[in-house]
């Protein structure tokens, strides 16, 4: 659907919602909407990214299908959000990666694993891949340190750069401006860390149907905090390696392994649970077109963690080499698709929440 049509539908929905306002207790979208009487394109982009897709407003809506108004805010906003991800992608030609995102993410997984395996075979004798390795630097016996570091730094650095430039573009085009003061910054950080707006005003959100539950919020916490723990684990390991000259693998009771294990378990449980919810949930408030990309990213995140845990379990056996290559293949794929997948919802939503906190503060000052 062309962007103009997506925004026309989002605008129609907002105009009906703004004349109704019954949902104002659910999340940030409605108070933000009530500050406006008309909705410019940038306003709609901002509001769409403020929406956490909790679906409460859909089930509460007196104008939802089969009513002739056919209001479906979660779907209209999900489609517009995806459009904003594509429009602000950097570099610009990569926007088209969002068009068939499930396929793109799946291909990235396949190519990531193949690339790491091929690289390994090219750089080391085949026996290295199948042999059991022990002691400090065992992983480097499979993949040379320089190659591992160079690929990781390049891929991750590019991902961060692309994400940052994308969010900056979104921030500007949605019409936000000025530097945030400490209070709204703290509020927005709190909203991000607690996923306050998946709370539905205290009762949880409509995970599956008309009933409320905290499940999705908890699963998302598992996934996102798990991801952060894994990131922390990798950072600590890198520091050990470079500053203490203590290369991996590390004993089980070491910071990198404890953090990584907890994080990995959180990610597997979170991604698996969210995948399961997607399968059993009432699809009516969702956008079917986006399901492929959402599922693919959850699969990638889950597999990244699962292969990491498996590597930990079998690292002293002959399976270590292959597992390491496969795990790093998933990690490489994750780095590559970060700026061109559902992953960008994190920074985009954080930006929208920051803007909401800034607007709220400005309103309170008046």
């Amino acid at each position, binding site marked *: 659907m062309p962007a103009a049509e997506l925004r026309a539908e989002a605008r129609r929905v907002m*105009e*009906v919602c703004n*004349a*109704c306002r*019954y*949902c*104002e*207790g*659910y999340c940030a979208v409605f108070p933000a909407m009530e500050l406006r*009487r008309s909705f410019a394109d940038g306003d709609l982009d901002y509001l769409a990214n403020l929406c956490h897709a909790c679906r*409460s*407003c859909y*089930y*509460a*809506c*007196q*104008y*939802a*299908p*089969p*009513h*002739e108004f056919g209001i479906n805010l979660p779907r209209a906003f999900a489609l517009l959000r995806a459009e904003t991800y594509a429009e602000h992608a950097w570099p610009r030609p990569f926007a088209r990666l969002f068009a068939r995102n499930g396929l793109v993410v799946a291909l990235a997984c396949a190519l990531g694993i193949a690339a790491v395996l091929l690289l390994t075979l090219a750089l080391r004798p085949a026996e290295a891949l199948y042999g059991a390795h022990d002691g400090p630097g065992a992983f480097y016996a499979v993949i040379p340190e320089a190659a591992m570091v160079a690929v990781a730094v390049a891929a991750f650095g590019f991902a961060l750069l692309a994400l940052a430039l994308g969010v900056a573009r979104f921030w500007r085009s949605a019409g936000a401006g000025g530097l945030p003061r400490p209070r709204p910054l703290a509020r927005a950080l709190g909203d991000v860390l607690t996923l306050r707006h998946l709370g539905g*005003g*205290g*009762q949880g959100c409509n995970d599956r149907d*008309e*009933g409320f539950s905290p499940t999705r919020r908890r699963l998302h916490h598992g996934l996102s905090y798990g991801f952060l723990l894994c990131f922390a684990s990798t950072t600590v390991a890198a520091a050990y390696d470079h500053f203490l000259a203590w290369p991996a693998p590390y004993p089980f009771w070491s910071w990198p392994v404890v953090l990584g294990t907890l994080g990995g378990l959180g990610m597997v449980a979170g991604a698996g649970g969210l995948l399961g919810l997607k399968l059993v949930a009432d699809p009516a408030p969702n956008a079917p077109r986006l399901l492929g990309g959402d599922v693919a990213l959850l699969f990638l995140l889950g597999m990244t963690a699962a292969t990491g845990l498996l590597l930990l379990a079998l690292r002293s056996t002959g399976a270590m080499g292959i597992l390491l290559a496969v795990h790093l293949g998933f990690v490489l794929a994750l780095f590559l698709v970060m700026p061109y997948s559902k992953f960008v919802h994190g920074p985009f939503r954080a930006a929208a929440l920051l803007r909401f906190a800034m607007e709220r503060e400005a309103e309170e000052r008046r």
Partner: protein
Amino acid sequence: MLNLDREYDVAVLGGGNAALCAALSAREAGASVLLLEHAPRGMRGGNSRHVRNVRTMHAAPTAILTEAYPEQEYWDDLNRVTAGGTDEGLARMLIRESALVPHWMEARGVRFQPALKGTLNLSRTNAFFLGGGKALLNACYRVAERLGIDIRYDSEVLSLALAGGAVGEVQARSQGFPATVRAKAVVAASGGFQANIAWLKEHWGEAAENFRVRGTPYAQGRVLRNLLDQGAAPVGDPTQCHAVAIDARAPRFDGGIVTRLDSIPFSIVVNRDGQRFYDEGEDAWPKRYAIWGRLVALQPGQVAYSILDAKAERLFMPSVFPAFRAATVGGLAQQLGLDPAALEETVRRFNAAVRPGAFDGAQPDGRATEGLAPPKSNWARAIDTPPFIGYPLCPGITFTYLGVKVNERAQVLTQSGRAVTNLFAAGEIMAGNILSQGYLAGTGMAIGTVFGRIAGREAARHARG
């Protein structure tokens, strides 16, 4: 699996809030319950799908209500809006029982919004449902399913057999097929007849063709008519109803809250001849909004136009439909299909009658016209700042007040004054016992909940002996 061959303890006719309250109360008292809802699942719930809040007596501030709203004040408010046309015994029972409503609902999964702090809002008198009426219905239907109440959608009740002071079989059409329902007791909670245009025409003539029905199209009044035909005592005037002036571009049915316009007190309202016909600034808007549906219904063509200027634009909640705008009053008249000369003259005379003074949009400010008939008693400012803005208005009926007479057990009474032993009524079908005219926001839900609970409890008691 539903089995219509069995005999239920209680059959509840209707699927809105009153029906659910009756069904839950009866089931919780141990009765087997069948609920027949005319609408399909996606449109279930009658007018409760569109509701926002419930008027609640309370002695002290709570998490969802500010200050206090004592019985006497509630009674005074109700007595005033109905001009004394209310059954004091039933009304006082309603008011006292309304205090229990939020807690009873919360125990069944309904959520309320925290009280809004502020001076002039309804948080003192009315408890707001988080997400509105449909969220409330979702919660109640979930509990009903969990408790084992049999729910049948797409099931319209056609007739009840009243004989020997009791009600017998219920005839229905369920998912397209005729069905006979047997129950020891019946609760009629099937709403008013506002969506039955033919019936409205019996009392309003062709004018009814121009009415919009703000809520459910399933309120056909079939059960009400059937009971009245069989000698149930009527209560209320068939032309009386909750009716507000809404945007004339609203759909015929089910437009709900977004078609509402609150521009009237800050505008002048003219009929299709460009003439004013009522004091737009008579009193605070929450006390006057519910008379304007009737006022517009009495105008030629059942249409009117709210005319204002740029100064007033931000003072009210607009409807979902865009305003008509023009640089001149004559240009606006043309857009609205009015005679430009007539509207210009009306605005000129109004402006000439405006007197200087302080304007306060938040409360009656005493800024009245002089020497104008009808006057505008508050908020009278000249309409002189372009762009000029107009909205077309038509009558929007929420629900009709003609109903069946009930006693304090919610039993339906016959014309001879005897109670039908096993027939109970709750909600709009008996709201006329309390509301003969006028309206007080949130009273409909209070009536539905309080009498629904009583009807369900009494029906279960009757059925289980």
